């Protein structure tokens, strides 16, 4: 079973990736692919790549609301008893996965990059420690939960066919006694530059060490006439605005060239920039995960390399 994620009437791309994987595993088990759709039934039209869509409708499910989703999903799990629940390892999965693991009494694997059956055992591979280590774990028992990294699997074939059987599940009483409510949906700030529209980005990560050091990166970005973007630690430190953040909680970018300096390449970051046509990474750690997706890499220190680059671009 896959939990469908949707916003503003649109089912996410990640949901189809999970359905594709669920279909593959269901084929191994000889079972069906079900999707839990919490919210408007009309969205089932976009879930044609599933066999069955299990729908719970309630006013509290119009947009994502943690407690409402958890109660509704628990009801669906109790009624359908799936072998495996797949969720995104983004906000919804980070929010609900572990709570459902306790309440549905099923082991959970997070940061999942690979998933399959090995001699009857369900085995997940988790990317931990910022992608530096792969932990292969077995999920014992008759049911399990996996929260899956974006881009780990490709979307299934029958996307959007609209041929799934639809089953309605009555909303549980807990949805009328929630301890939280959605006040408003806040659209992202427009910001001074749109990094998602740039042809090329100079992007900087934790390796820059201090805010003062950002100056040499800004100099390179200026010389190239492109925006300066960053990975999460630089934004969390308050050195660059949120609008410059590339990654799962920032923006997804697909520039013609992405120059990454001092970025290790945590899975959340890779999700935001893996679509770039050319990725050049500079990191002194030869084991940095960024080199696993970069086209070109160097372990030269960025503090030695960047001034040389500025020099050459200027001349």
């Amino acid at each position, binding site marked *: 079973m896959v939990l469908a994620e949707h*916003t503003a009437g649109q089912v996410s791309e990640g949901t189809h990736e999970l359905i594709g994987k669920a279909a593959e595993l269901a084929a191994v088990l000889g079972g069906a692919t079900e999707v839990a759709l919490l919210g408007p039934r009309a969205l089932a039209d976009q879930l044609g790549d599933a066999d069955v869509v299990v729908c719970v409708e309630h006013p509290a499910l119009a947009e994502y*609301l*943690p407690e409402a989703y958890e109660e509704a999903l628990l009801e669906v799990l109790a009624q359908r008893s799936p072998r495996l629940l797949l969720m995104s390892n983004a*906000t919804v999965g*980070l*929010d609900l*996965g*572990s*709570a459902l*693991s*306790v309440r549905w009494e099923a*082991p*959970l*694997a*997070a940061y999942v990059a690979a998933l399959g059956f090995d001699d009857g055992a369900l085995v997940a*591979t988790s*990317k931990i*420690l*910022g992608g*530096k*280590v*792969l*932990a*292969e*774990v*077995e*999920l*014992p028992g008759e049911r399990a939960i996996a*929260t899956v990294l974006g881009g780990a699997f490709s979307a299934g074939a029958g996307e959007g066919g609209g041929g799934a059987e639809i089953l309605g599940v009555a909303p549980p009483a807990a949805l009328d006694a929630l*301890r*939280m*409510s*959605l*006040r408003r*949906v*806040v659209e992202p700030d427009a910001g001074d530059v749109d990094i998602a529209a740039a*042809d*090329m980005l100079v992007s900087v990560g934790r390796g820059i060490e201090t805010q003062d050091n950002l100056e040499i990166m800004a100099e390179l970005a200026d010389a*190239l006439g492109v925006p300066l973007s960053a990975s*999460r630690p630089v934004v*969390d*430190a*308050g050195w660059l605005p949120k609008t410059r953040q590339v990654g799962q*909680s920032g923006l*997804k970018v697909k520039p013609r*060239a992405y120059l990454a300096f001092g970025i290790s390449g945590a899975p959340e970051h890779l999700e935001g920039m893996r679509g770039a046509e*050319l990725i050049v990474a500079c990191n002194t750690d*030869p084991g940095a*995960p960024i*080199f*696993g*997706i970069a*086209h*070109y*890499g*160097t372990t030269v*220190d960025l503090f030695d*390399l960047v001034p*040389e680059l500025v020099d*050459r671009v200027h001349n």
Partner: protein
Amino acid sequence: MRIVVPMKSVPDLVEEIEFTADGTGIEREQLKFVLNEWDAQALEEALLLRDSGGVEVVAVGCAVDPEIDQILYTALAKGADAAVRLADARAGSSSGPAGIPVAARAALLAAYLEDQPADLVISGVQAPDDPDGQLPPTLAALLGLPHVSVAVGVEADGDGVTVRQEFAGGLSHELWVGLPAVIGVQSARQAPRYAPISRIRQTMSAGGLGELAVTPREPQGGPVPRRMLQPATTGHAEMLTGSPGDVADQIVELLRSRGLVKGE
């Protein structure tokens, strides 16, 4: 309002990671441990709430975590009102080579919070070394409390809190959550404050770190480690070598050949 901030240490990501002899865990003996960066954000958010008045902040760590004393003293130096190191009262319990699973950590904290309830529990949204889930929702489920993760701002609001929950692409939801509740923080409203070494030394010499032994319920079984692997990072990127100048020449040529840099 009493805010409890569970904190943990994690391997420093700049360190070379080695595996245990049986290949199922990380060799922790030689590793340097630092505060989980999301817990640093959570502490900052709790201290921001404290700055607005009427709030007591208690930092809590598990006694078996490496460097936990240093982390808790630093929290005191930053302005936490109290710090507590939790020990497992059951004889023979230990962290084991892989550290404490999320379920066991949550069980320990739940035992503490059932004894000394908090209005709000604020912790880091995740820890980079937990393949078995996240602490805040696990703890909330054990305590039967509402919870919100991936929070980027928490503010007092009547008999609850307003929480900003962030989604991909910078979209966020503003939620009202009744207390008590558990929040998993992605990032604080401002960068974590700094505590000078001299002040951390002062708090250390003043003591003030409490230790409490609690008896947790048996945690639920989680995933079973099979093996650890280093991801293949070599073989994909073509490595550019030579002096910084040589590498710069090659990068500029790559961009030039794609028409992204003018000249020659």
